[in-house]
């Protein structure tokens, strides 16, 4: 009797707790602000999350765009937004670390509380399919033979692509020329037109351009499931893992409990097999850095990027 009563109460409590948790968040539409324009990777990944968000919560997300100053227009205003978990903002690395180093953009890296890093687009070296460079080794040898003549298109200056080019040049002891373009689309145009030797892009570029291009290496721990023919830099002897990371942030003053709820929800979406399949088919690589681990992750990335930024001379005096 005693035991069953206890069980009953335990069960009732569990049901109540579960009910409370389900009712607590989200109870209404969540505003999801993208710090870039529509059509980019941040937008596409949010669009892919949307149906699963709806399925898991019975609530909708309203995706909004607030582009400007490479994302800083949104991030500088993040902490003034409602801190109730109903306004979430997409965040990006290396942007969040590099921008405040370069100039006064109205926010500091530590001001931004990302509660979950949910995927990244790994850096990749892509060449046109007709290129004589068949492997990374070919590329390194060509670069060693005539320093500076190998040109890479990439999106933006001091961007993830640019950083990757610098890192790899140093690792391989080569000198290549990085040509910045306005956005991935323009960089891809130069790549397909063979205006440049190749491109420092992402796995998503390889997926989007398909058989028109060849991927020489990706900056992942292991090969991308949808691009199995492209080796990792690690396999080839270069310790290069990274890319552009994307997360979800809420205003700093948001209560810890709500932060946890947002983090849990994004994590739940991230573990839906159907979502993972769609993300990977588009070339994204999944990442699961939840609230408990974001601080450690950011600290690691900060020291990594800061060292690079100093080397590149982009740190504001």
């Amino acid at each position, binding site marked *: 009797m005693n035991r069953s009563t206890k069980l009953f109460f335990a069960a009732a409590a569990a049901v109540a707790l579960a009910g409370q948790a389900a009712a607590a968040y989200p109870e209404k539409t969540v505003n999801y602000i993208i710090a870039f324009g*529509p059509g980019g990777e941040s937008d*596409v990944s949010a669009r892919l999350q949307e149906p699963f968000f709806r399925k898991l919560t019975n609530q909708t997300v309203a995706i909004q765009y607030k582009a400007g100053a490479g994302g800083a227009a949104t991030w500088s205003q993040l902490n003034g937004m409602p801190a109730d978990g109903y306004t979430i903002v997409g965040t990006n690395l290396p942007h969040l670390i590099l921008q405040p180093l370069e100039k006064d953009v109205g926010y500091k890296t530590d001001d931004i509380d990302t509660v979950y890093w949910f995927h990244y687009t790994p850096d990749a070296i892509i060449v046109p399919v007709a290129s004589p460079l068949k492997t990374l080794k070919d590329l390194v040898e060509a670069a060693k033979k005539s320093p500076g003549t190998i040109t890479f298109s990439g999106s*933006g200056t001091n961007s993830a692509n640019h950083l990757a080019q610098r890192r790899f040049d140093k690792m391989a002891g080569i000198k290549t020329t990085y040509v910045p373009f306005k956005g991935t689309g*323009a960089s*891809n*145009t130069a790549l397909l*037109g063979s205006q440049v030797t190749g491109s420092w892009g992402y796995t998503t570029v390889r997926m989007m351009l398909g058989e028109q291009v060849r991927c020489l290496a990706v900056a992942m721990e292991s090969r991308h499931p949808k691009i199995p023919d492209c080796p990792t830099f690690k396999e080839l002897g270069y310790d290069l893992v990274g890319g552009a990371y994307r997360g979800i942030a809420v205003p700093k003053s948001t209560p810890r409990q709500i932060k946890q709820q947002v983090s849990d929800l994004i994590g739940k979406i991230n573990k839906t097999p159907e979502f993972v399949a769609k993300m990977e088919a588009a070339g994204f690589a999944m990442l699961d850095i939840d609230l408990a681990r974001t601080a450690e992750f950011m600290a690691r990335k900060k020291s990594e990027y800061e060292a690079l930024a100093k080397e590149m001379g982009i740190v504001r005096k």
Partner: protein
Amino acid sequence: MPQLDFLISAATPFNLLLAVAGVVAGTVIGALPGLTATMAVAVLVPFTFGMPPASGLIALGAIYTGAIYGGAYSAILLNTPGTPSAIATTFEGYPMAKRGDGDLAITLACIASVVGGLVGALFLLLLAPPLAAVALRFGPVEYFWLAIFGLTLIASLSEGSLLKGALGGCLGVILSTIGTAEVGGDIRYTGDFKSLLGGIEVVPALIGLYCVPVLIDMVATADPHLRLKEKLAGYRLGEALRLACGSKWNVARSSLIGTVVGILPGAGGSIASLVSYAEARRSSPRSANFGHGEPDGLIASESANNATVGGGLIPTLVLGIPGTPPDAVILGALMVQGVRSGPALFSVQSQIVYTFIYGLFIATILMLPIGLLIGRHAFRSLIAIPKAILVPAVAFLTVIGAYAVQNSENDVLQMVLLGIAGWGLSRFGFSASPIVLGLILGPIAEAGFVQGTLIGGAKGSVLAEFFTRPISVAIICLIVLSLFYPLVLQRKRLPAMRRQSGPAQ
């Protein structure tokens, strides 16, 4: 006959419904100043995710083409391009509306848009893969020269003083350098204002420079905003058709220019409409009438900008590279749908592509009745609304439009300040168009120059990179031609000008 199957699957009742709804939604959004075609597509994209890919694409294509046409309404009736693609439509459309031919201008814009749209779609249907290959021949250096060529159009776009036009163009280019350089990353001319780090956005600048002066003038004068010739004459369709047929070469040339500019990634409807306007003006027998409500200029601009829809989709679908800004959104939607763009799309997933292309044809044709109908309402209500309501309503729209571009209060401030500055400058004979042209083309020229220099440097010779590539040489020849053309024209015109007295309004 697989093509017929595609046509049939494009014409299912559901797809037809989507085409109608898309064109209507696009036209209305495009007509509001500041709400661009890109935004129309972006806002409505989520509705298409639940649909089969081909249907979703048809809806997006219909919205896109409708929005490009809708931009003409505010261009004609308010002198404010509803989308950047309609900049050149203001040059003749507004003077036409001023003198009482607003209804004719709108009908004409509709016919020109439909024809231009069909030409663009035809190229998409028949020649997409080879044309996409041509687009790839354009490297950074070619874009640099193209932008310079575009800047020489100032010569044919400036009313009155060429010097003032050139100065306006310079001002536009300088304004475009404000903020963080896209290529190179340096921060320029921000005066430590964080709000200027992102630079000056084209659309708010457009609204400010074109619309604010009109609003100020509306308030400053007692006349009604637009005059009516006599009674409302209906659509004036017959008259418009006669005009369009009369300049069929203009329509063909402008549609072709629009298609080609659309194919080039990075150049969109705004450049297409400006280039074909300048070309129409150069070759028209009535070139002296340009600027005073010459239908030829309106036809050129409107057929060109709708031709960019089909043209821009060529690199988008064939290469996976957006041809115009709205195409970037469409490409994102394709990714979400799990449809791979690229050469394989035309063979492996031909069902989707061809159904979409036929759907685009259908949507473009549907634009004729829909556009005429909406246009008539827009025109009538604008005539009927008293100024005391019209001015605050439009002023409100300009604020919304400037804000909506990137949900930023900053852009609203920029819009108002540039508008007031533009009004002041117009008092001294500086028109808005050269400034806007500089603002649009400056960044293209700059990026092309820096990239060309970097690539040329890596190859061993910067000069060879800029001056020996065949397409570059061809564009340089065009530039020389374009620069010296006004001098020839002036010599021809001078006696005629002397005979006429007084500056034209």
